[in-house]
């Protein structure tokens, strides 16, 4: 038998000479990338956006605000028209399909200087909004005509916030229509979040005030809108002068304790998180350009589980203590009041607002939803153990490319399941459907199956699966051991 010493090998010398440290040096943005040509429509629209910012700046810097609507329409009208125009001209001549070219090279989309600047600006806005609203006086005055028209009341910082929030959902919702015009699932769910934000979370609450009813958000429930089941809010609603106060308490309780489990059983957590919720609505529209930034590692998953269930326990505890305190004439008031304040400050404001939205361009668009939201935690437990919803994997067609995992805004390693032909049943999945849309091999499909028991081995016994999950602190089936 012969030996082939290195000298006589048939392997191409160029191949043998190849050594590139792809781990350290990677394959990043190209040194000279040809820019996408900007059409005249895009440039004109960019100009209109610029004029909108100019009008806004002039107004904020002290132009007299007489003439009520004029400065409002000038600044927000130009900004909106310019944004719609820009998106329209950017996409109208493209072939419908996935539009991810250059996402990993983009300064805005891949943690470049622009992304950091945007993150700091957004974070700064939240900090001012929560703690120094006096600096927003002129901006609040700017939206005053709209507030007066809707509710007859003067605007405050929360009206301003609600207005900007709704505007972002609607404008970037339009961007979703253009990006996903080949995919009706995305169009329908985007219409849904736009409707719930615009009507139920903006127009209706302020219109209610005009009718002398309490300002109430029918699309937010405890434990996300944590104070809706606090004794103070319940008292306030029941004793409010309007006729609807008691109904609002009833509605909130029914949604939290009956609608939530029933709808989640049939449709999964998505009925709320990516179809109704305002936080989800902003994440799915304004936040879409940053969805791939959510960390995917096992470590991030462990952190997620630790924090989200801690927040859930905390809000249950806070609510319980408040009720004990209010029904026992202040027995626990020495801890209930600080607990309520602490939760409102650190979780309600800092986590959900400042970090949750402020860090979109750096940490991804679902930081709050994934790591913090107690509503997501409850919906997730139901979805994981007792729901018909699953993402079905199509047999052996997965080729492990990783597009699904990359674009999962909840940090789920979708590929880990798909490549082994397993369905994806995870508590964090918000059912946005992007994994299915980006899959180049048609492997993933969001489905409401015929039962909860055919989703994975053991799913027919939800309590058993739950107890195994709790005792092992892991997903019940399949520790990771390769493709097989």
């Amino acid at each position, binding site marked *: *038998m*012969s*030996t*082939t*010493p*290195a000298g*006589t*090998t*048939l*392997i*191409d010398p160029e*191949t*043998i000479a*190849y*050594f*590139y440290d*792809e781990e350290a040096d*990677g*394959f990043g943005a*190209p040194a*000279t*990338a*040809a*820019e996408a*040509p900007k059409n005249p429509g895009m440039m004109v629209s960019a100009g209109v956006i610029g004029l909108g910012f100019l009008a806004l700046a002039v107004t904020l810097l002290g132009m007299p605000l007489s003439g009520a609507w004029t400065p409002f329409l000038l600044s927000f009208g130009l900004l909106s028209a310019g944004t719609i125009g820009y998106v329209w001209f950017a996409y109208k001549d493209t*072939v419908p399909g996935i539009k*991810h*070219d*250059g*996402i*990993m*090279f983009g300064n805005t989309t891949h943690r470049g200087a622009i992304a950091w600047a945007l993150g700091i600006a957004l974070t700064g806005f939240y900090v001012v909004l929560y703690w120094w609203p006096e600096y927003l006086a002129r901006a609040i005055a700017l939206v005053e005509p709209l507030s007066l028209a809707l509710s007859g009341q003067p605007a405050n910082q929360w009206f301003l916030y609600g207005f900007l929030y709704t505007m972002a959902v609607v404008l970037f919702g339009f961007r979703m229509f253009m990006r996903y015009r080949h*995919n*009706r*699932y995305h*169009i329908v769910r985007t219409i849904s979040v736009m409707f719930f934000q615009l009507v139920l979370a903006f127009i209706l609450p302020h219109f209610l005030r005009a009718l002398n009813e309490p300002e109430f958000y029918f699309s937010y429930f405890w434990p996300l809108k944590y104070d809706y089941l606090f004794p103070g809010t319940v008292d306030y609603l029941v004793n409010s002068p309007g006729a609807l106060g008691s109904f609002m308490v009833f509605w909130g309780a029914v949604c939290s304790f009956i609608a939530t489990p029933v709808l989640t059983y049939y449709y999964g957590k998505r009925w709320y998180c990516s179809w109704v919720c305002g936080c989800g609505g902003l994440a799915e529209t304004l936040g879409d350009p940053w969805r791939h930034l959510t960390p995917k590692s*096992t470590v991030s998953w462990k952190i997620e589980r630790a924090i989200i269930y801690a927040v859930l326990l905390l809000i249950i505890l806070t609510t319980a203590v408040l009720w004990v305190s209010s029904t026992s004439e202040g027995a626990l008031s020495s801890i209930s009041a600080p607990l309520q304040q602490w939760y409102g400050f650190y979780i309600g404001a800092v986590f959900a607002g400042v970090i949750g939205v402020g860090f979109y361009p750096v940490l991804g668009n679902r930081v709050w939803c994934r790591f913090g939201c107690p509503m997501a935690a409850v919906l997730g437990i139901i979805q994981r153990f007792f729901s018909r919803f699953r993402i*079905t994997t*199509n*047999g*052996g*067609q997965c*080729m*492990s*490319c*990783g*597009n699904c*995992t*990359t674009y999962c805004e909840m940090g789920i390693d979708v*590929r880990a399941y798909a*490549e082994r032909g397993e369905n994806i049943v995870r508590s964090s999945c918000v059912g946005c*459907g992007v994994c299915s849309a980006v899959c180049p*091999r*048609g492997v993933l*499909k*969001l489905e409401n199956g015929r039962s909860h028991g055919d989703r994975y081995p053991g799913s027919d016994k939800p309590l058993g699966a739950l107890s195994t999950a709790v005792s092992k602190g892991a997903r019940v089936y399949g520790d990771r*051991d*390769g*493709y*097989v």
Partner: protein
Amino acid sequence: MHTVIVGNGVTGVTAATRLRQLQPDWKITLVSGESAYHYSRPALMYIFMGHMTYEATKPFEDRFWRDQRLDLVRDWVTGIDIEDKQLVLHRNGRLPYDRLLIATGAKSNKFGWPGQELEGVQGLYNLKDLRQLYKNAERTRNAVIVGGGLIGIELAEMLHSRHIHVTFLIREASYWCNILPMEESGMINRLIEEQGIGLIRETNLKEIVDDGLGKVEAVVTEFDDRIECQLVGLTPGVSPNTDLVRSTPIETGRGVLVDHAFRTNIPDIYAAGDCAEIVSRNGGRNLIQQVWYTGRKQGKAAGEVLAGEDTEYDPGIWFNSAKFFDLEYQTYGMILSTPQPGEQHLYWEHPSHRHAVRVVGVDGCINAFNFMGIRARHEVCERWIAERRPVEYVLDHLEEANFDPEFFVRHETEIVRSLKEQLA
């Protein structure tokens, strides 16, 4: 027992992980000169287009290899010392083995075109090619791609994403029509042209022109048409990579010759995946399979054989998929470009040319499907083919096979009406 696997592609890695499941205590080593860790080769295009980072193409976190106790060696294997059961490594001396699996994959074909060694001429198969493409694309405004297969169209899409004008030069009358029936192939021609990519059909490459400095300047076709370009992508298919074994007593044909248990003619040396040629048991055609799915399937069976089990490779019912720009394609069962004797082909295409279904029956029973722009359930299609369901039954139940996302427009009514008319 020390098992060494040469190659960390899907076959080598699947074999390693399957072997680990069956033999928790054996020492297993994977050797690769291409990359430190396993990555998904079909995802190469997404790195270049900026859809994904390189990091994200790795199906397993780096800690996976430690957890599974799979040793990774980053080196090129330059020879096999069969007598002493050792591999000769380029940088790190020798690596002894008890069992050896060769999973070296495939390499790009080159047909000896004049100028194919010029700077700016390349194929696309591995990370080395990707790096070269990064470099070559920088100075490129116009590119020519020669060869109309799956890699060719991927390369076209990649360059197109960087706003490089692409001309596609194919030998055939229509894109990939040596594999796809004319109608499906025609849909893809349209897509290529719709993207603004030039498609020149029934034309062979004559030569690649040097700019005088060793770089490509143009290509010349067999009709003496000259196309200016700074990059030439050569993608006329791949062949088994047998470089490592060709100077050894290990028998090769087009690939490394193995039996259905992936054994070569040398004891304790096995080969699987794209590099292997499975010798037919009955004197029929040998089997060379070179897609991701067969690589994974062969790897799993090879892992079992390495572990000492009696597994024989069963190719099962063929399936494959691809995406041509924005058009998805799935196939179940084997469909050749022209109807074979005894086959009945039923075909429906949407007027938009973005959806199509082909149903192939043999003796009135379902034999294969092509789906374009419609997703279909693997499990259902495979079961119908395995059970030899009548075509009539399949058409009546076609919606059960649909795997399109919710709210998508369903076409079953028109499809079934049209196909039943053809059936009658």
